[in-house]
C-alpha cells in the first residue's frame, strides 16, 4: 500500500514538535518508558487511518480523539494539533503529503490529491491493524476459539465475504419466490384455459382438437398447429369479433363453479391444518416482548443494510464504509440468529396460505367480469370488497410484520359469506341466460379460448424467465459457497504453514520441528501448537510468555501477508517482543529482514539491546533509528543526537541552571557509557534489576579502553610494527589525558548517594566539566567516521579494536613465540 518518507508531528499526544525521516526504510524508535514512543505510533496510525486505537474501542471509557489526541496544552486549539506524512505509494509510484488535524480526524488532506491516492487511503482506513501493540498481537494467540475466529475474521475482513454470501442468498431466495409466484400465476392461467375450453389438459393436441371442433361449426378451416402467429379465432377477424359479445355461458358456469370450489376448500381438506400450523409458527415469535423486540430488531437491521447507499449509515447519516456497517449489523444480527430461524420457519408455513388467498383473489377478478354484466352495484361492491380483503390479507402475510396483524389474518381469513352469496346470484343469472345457438357458442368459445391462451402464453414466458433467473441465482450462490469455503480453507492452511515456518525460523535452536494447526469450524477457530513433539496444545498451555510473544508476531505476520498480499508494505510493531529473550530477538530481526524485505517496519522498544540486534542484523540502519532520552510535558520527547546534548548542557549552565545541566550530564554519561560498554565488550557488575548507574558503567569502560589499547600495543610490538605502536601510543596518551582532564575519579559518584555533586558547582566550574567530559567521550569514537570504536567480533575471541571506516583497526593477535 504505502511507505513513509517523513513524519511530522505537531502538538499531538505527548509530542510538541517532531519530524522523523524514515526514508521508506525500516525505522526504530527506542527510549525508556514514558519518553514519547507511543506518540509516534499514535501519530502514524492517526495520519494513515484517522483513528487512534489507544483512545478508542472497548474499555476506553470517555476517551476520544477530539478531546484527547491534542497535546494537553493544545486541547483548546485542536486545529493546531496535526500529523503530516510524506508517503510513497508503490502501486502508483507517487509521493503525496497526507495531513490530518485533531479538529477533523476524518478529513484527510492530500497533496497532490487524486482518486487513486484516496482509494489507497480508504484501504488504509479499513486496515488499522497495520499498527499493533503487543497486547493486540498476543490476543490472536491467547484467546478462546470463538473470539479468535472473530478477531481473525475481522483482521482478514472476512465479514465482506459473509455480506456477499448473505446478499447472494437473499437474491437467490427472492428469485425463487418470484419464480414460484410466476409459476402459480401460470397454473392459474392454465386452469382458466382448461376450464374455458373444457379440456382435460392444456396440451397442443387437446387445444387444437377442441378449437377445430368449434371452428368447424362456424365454417372455419382447422388449425394445424399452435405456432406463435396462429390465433384460435383466425377467420373471426372483425373488430367486434375481438371480444365475446355476450357472456360465454359455458365458460362462465365453469369459472363460477371453480371459484366456489376454491373458496370452499378453505374449510375442507388439509387447508385448516396448514392454517393452524402457520398461526402457531407465528405465535411462537410473539411469546414474550423480548422475542417480539428481537424480531423487530432483526427486521430493522436487515432493512438498514438494504438501505445502505455505500456512503452514509441510513440510520444516523454518519459516513460509514460497507465493512463498518456490515460489521455492526452482522454482529447484532448474529445475536438474533435463533429468532431468525423461527421467522424463516413461520414464513415457510405462511406461504401456502398466501398462495390460496392469491388464487381466490384471481377468481374474484374473473367473477367480477361476469357480475358486471349480470348484477347490480351492491353485488359488484361485495365482490370488490372481498377481492380487496384478500389482497390486503395476502400483503399482510407477505410483509410478515407487524406480527399481531399477521396473526389476526391467520386467525380470521377474509369472510367469503357475502362473496358466496353473490356467486349464487351470478350462477342463477348465468343459468337464466338463453342457451346460445351452436354457432354463437362456438364463436364465444374461440374468442374466450384465444384470450386465455394469450394470457397463458404471457404467464408462461414470465414464469420461464423467472425460473431461469432463479436457477442462475441459486447456482451462482452454490458456486460461491463452494468456492469461498475451499478458498478459505486454503487460506487457513497457508496461514498455518506460513506461521509455523516463521516460528521455526525464530526458534530453530530448540523447536526446529514445530508445527501448528488452525482448525476452523462454525464460528470458531481452534489454534493448536506442537509442544516438543508431545502433542498439540493451546499456545498458552505450555509455551513460555516469550514463545507466546513470538507466536503472536508470527501469526500476525502470516495473517497480514494473506490479508493484504502484495499490498502488505508497512507495519508498526509497538514493543511487541517484550518477553522474548535476547537470543530469539536476534532471530526475529533476521527473520523480519530476510522474510519481509519489501515491508517498511516501524518498531518501538524500550530495550537498547533489542535496538542493537536490529542494527547488527541490519534490520535498521544507523540513520533509521531515533533514541528518545527524556520527555517533559512542556517539551515532549528529546532525542539523543550527536552534539546537541552538550550544547543543551552549556545552555542550561549559562542560564544559571547548573543543577539542570548537572542532571543532564549525568543522564547523558549513563546513556553513552552504556554504549561504550557494549561496543568495547566491557564486563560490568551484574545488576538484578538491569539498572546501572554512571559509576557502574563509565569506570569499567575507561578501564577497558586502556586495557584494549595496551593489548593492541603489545600485539603490534610483537610484530615489531613500530608505526602502529606509535599510533596506538598516541591514542593511549590522548585518551589518558582526556580521562585526567575530566577528573573522573574526583567526580566518581557513589550510587547510594542521591545528591549529584556537580549540582553544587559554580557555572564556570561546571562548564569546564562539560568540556572535559565531551572531550573524553569523543575519545571513544573514531575522529574520522564518528562511529564508536568497538571490539570485533562482538562475541568470542577478540580480534580487533576498530571503527566503522577502518581508520582505527588494531589487531590483538600477537606474533607466535619462536620455539
Amino acid at each position, binding site marked *: 500500500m504505502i511507505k513513509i518518507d517523513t513524519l511530522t508531528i505537531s502538538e499531538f499526544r505527548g509530542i510538541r514538535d517532531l519530524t522523523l525521516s524514515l526514508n521508506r526504510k525500516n525505522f526504530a524508535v527506542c527510549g525508556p518508558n514514558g519518553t514519547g514512543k507511543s506518540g509516534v505510533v499514535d501519530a502514524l496510525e492517526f495520519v494513515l487511518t484517522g483513528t487512534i486505537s489507544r483512545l478508542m474501542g472497548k474499555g476506553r471509557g470517555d476517551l476520544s480523539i477530539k478531546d484527547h489526541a491534542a497535546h494537553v496544552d493544545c486541547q483548546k486549539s485542536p486545529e493546531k494539533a496535526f500529523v503530516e506524512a510524506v508517503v510513497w505509494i508503490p502501486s502508483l509510484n507517487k509521493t503525496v503529503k497526507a495531513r490530518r488535524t485533531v479538529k477533523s480526524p476524518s478529513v484527510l488532506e492530500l497533496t497532490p490529491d487524486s482518486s487513486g491516492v484516496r482509494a489507497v487511503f480508504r484501504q488504509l482506513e479499513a486496515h488499522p491493524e497495520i499498527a499493533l501493540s503487543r497486547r493486540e498481537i498476543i490476543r490472536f494467540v491467547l484467546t478462546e476459539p470463538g473470539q479468535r475466529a472473530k478477531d481473525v475474521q475481522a483482521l482478514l475482513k472476512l465479514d465482506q465475504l459473509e455480506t456477499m454470501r448473505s446478499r447472494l442468498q437473499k437474491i437467490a431466495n427472492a428469485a425463487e419466490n418470484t419464480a414460484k409466484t410466476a409459476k402459480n400465476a401460470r397454473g392459474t392461467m392454465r386452469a382458466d384455459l382448461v376450464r374455458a375450453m373444457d379440456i382435460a389438459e392444456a396440451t397442443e393436441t387437446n387445444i387444437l382438437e377442441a378449437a377445430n371442433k368449434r371452428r368447424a361449426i362456424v365454417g372455419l378451416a382447422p388449425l394445424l398447429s399452435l405456432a406463435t402467429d396462429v390465433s384460435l379465432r383466425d377467420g373471426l377477424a372483425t373488430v367486434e369479433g375481438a371480444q365475446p359479445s355476450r357472456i360465454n355461458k359455458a365458460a362462465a358456469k365453469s369459472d363460477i363453479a371453480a371459484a366456489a370450489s376454491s373458496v370452499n376448500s378453505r374449510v375442507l381438506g388439509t387447508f385448516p391444518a396448514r392454517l393452524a400450523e402457520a398461526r402457531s409458527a407465528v405465535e411462537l415469535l410473539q411469546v414474550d416482548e423480548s422475542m417480539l423486540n428481537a424480531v423487530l430488531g432483526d427486521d430493522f437491521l436487515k432493512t438498514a443494510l438494504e438501505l445502505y447507499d455505500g456512503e452514509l449509515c441510513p440510520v444516523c447519516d454518519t459516513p460509514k464504509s460497507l465493512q463498518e456497517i456490515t460489521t455492526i449489523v452482522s454482529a447484532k444480527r448474529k445475536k438474533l440468529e435463533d429468532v431468525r430461524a423461527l421467522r424463516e420457519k413461520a414464513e415457510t408455513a405462511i406461504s401456502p396460505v398466501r398462495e390460496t388467498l392469491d388464487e381466490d383473489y384471481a377468481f374474484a377478478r374473473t367473477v367480477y367480469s361476469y357480475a358486471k354484466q349480470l348484477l347490480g352495484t351492491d353485488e359488484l361492491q361485495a365482490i370488490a370488497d372481498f377481492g380487496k380483503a384478500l389482497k390486503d390479507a395476502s400483503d399482510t402475510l407477505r410483509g410478515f410484520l407487524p406480527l399481531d396483524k399477521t396473526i389476526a389474518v391467520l386467525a380470521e381469513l377474509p369472510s367469503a359469506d357475502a362473496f358466496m352469496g353473490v356467486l349464487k346470484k351470478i350462477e342463477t343469472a348465468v343459468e337464466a341466460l338463453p342457451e346460445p345457438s351452436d354457432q354463437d357458442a362456438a364463436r364465444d368459445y374461440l374468442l374466450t379460448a384465444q384470450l386465455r391462451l394469450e394470457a397463458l402464453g404471457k404467464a408462461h414466458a414470465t414464469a420461464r424467465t423467472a425460473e431461469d433467473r432463479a436457477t442462475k441465482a441459486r447456482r*451462482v450462490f452454490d458456486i460461491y459457497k463452494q*468456492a*469461498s469455503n475451499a478458498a478459505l480453507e486454503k487460506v487457513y492452511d497457508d496461514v498455518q504453514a506460513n506461521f509455523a515456518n516463521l516460528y521455526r525460523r525464530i526458534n530453530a535452536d530448540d523447536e526446529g520441528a514445530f508445527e501448528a494447526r488452525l482448525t476452523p469450524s462454525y464460528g470458531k477457530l481452534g489454534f493448536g501448537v506442537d509442544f516438543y513433539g508431545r502433542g498439540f496444545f493451546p499456545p498458552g498451555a505450555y509455551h513460555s510468555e516469550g514463545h507466546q510473544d513470538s507466536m503472536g508476531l508470527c501469526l500476525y505476520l502470516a495473517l497480514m501477508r494473506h490479508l493484504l498480499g502484495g499490498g502488505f508494505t508497512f507495519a508498526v510493531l509497538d514493543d511487541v517482543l517484550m518477553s522474548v529473550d535476547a537470543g530469539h530477538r536476534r532471530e526475529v530481526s533476521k527473520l523480519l529482514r530476510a522474510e519481509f524485505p519489501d515491508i517498511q517496519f516501524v518498531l518501538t522498544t524500550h530495550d537498547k539491546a533489542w535496538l542493537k540486534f536490529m542494527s547488527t542484523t541490519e534490520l535498521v540502519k544507523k540513520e533509521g533509528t531515533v533514541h528518545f532520552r527524556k520527555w517533559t510535558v512542556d517539551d515532549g520527547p528529546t532525542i539523543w543526537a550527536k552534539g546537541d546534548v552538550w550544547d543543551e548542557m552549556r545552555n542550561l549552565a549559562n542560564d544559571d541552571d547548573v543543577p539542570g545541566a548537572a542532571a543532564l550530564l549525568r543522564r547523558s554519561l549513563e546513556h553513552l557509557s552504556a554504549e561504550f560498554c557494549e561496543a568495547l565488550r566491557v564486563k560490568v557488575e551484574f545488576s538484578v534489576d538491569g539498572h546501572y548507574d554512571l559509576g557502574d558503567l563509565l569506570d569499567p569502560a575507561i578501564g577497558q579502553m586502556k586495557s584494549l589499547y595496551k593489548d593492541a600495543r603489545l600485539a603490534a610490538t610483537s610484530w615489531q610494527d613500530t608505526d602502529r605502536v606509535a599510533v596506538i601510543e598516541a591514542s593511549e596518551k590522548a585518551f589518558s589525558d582526556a580521562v585526567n582532564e575530566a577528573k573522573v575519579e574526583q567526580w566518581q559518584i557513589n550510587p547510594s548517594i542521591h545528591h549529584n555533586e556537580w549540582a553544587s558547582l559554580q557555572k564556570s566550574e561546571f562548564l569546564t566539566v562539560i568540556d572535559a567530559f565531551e572531550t573524553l567521550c569523543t575519545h571513544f569514537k573514531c575522529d574520522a567516521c564518528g562511529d564508536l570504536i568497538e571490539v570485533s567480533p562482538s562475541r568470542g575471541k577478540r580480534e580487533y579494536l576498530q571503527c566503522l571506516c577502518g581508520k582505527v583497526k588494531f589487531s590483538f593477535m600477537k606474533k607466535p613465540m619462536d620455539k
Partner: protein
Amino acid sequence: MTELDKPDIIESNDLSVVDRVLTEFINAVAAEDGYLEISARLKDGILEKRDFSEAALERALFGVEQ
C-alpha cells in the same frame, strides 16, 4: 470454444484474502457452462468497481436489462 469465448481467468497472486476468494468464485462461475457473461459482469462489478450492493449483484446475475 474459441479463444474469445475462453473465460478470463484472473491470477490470484498478490491479492488480499477477500479478493482471492472472490477471484476463485468468479473463475468458478466462468467455468460453468453458459455462465460466462455472468462471470464477466461479476468481475466488473465486484472486483473492479468494488460494488457489493444487492443492486449491483442483481445486475451482475441477471444483466442490466432487468
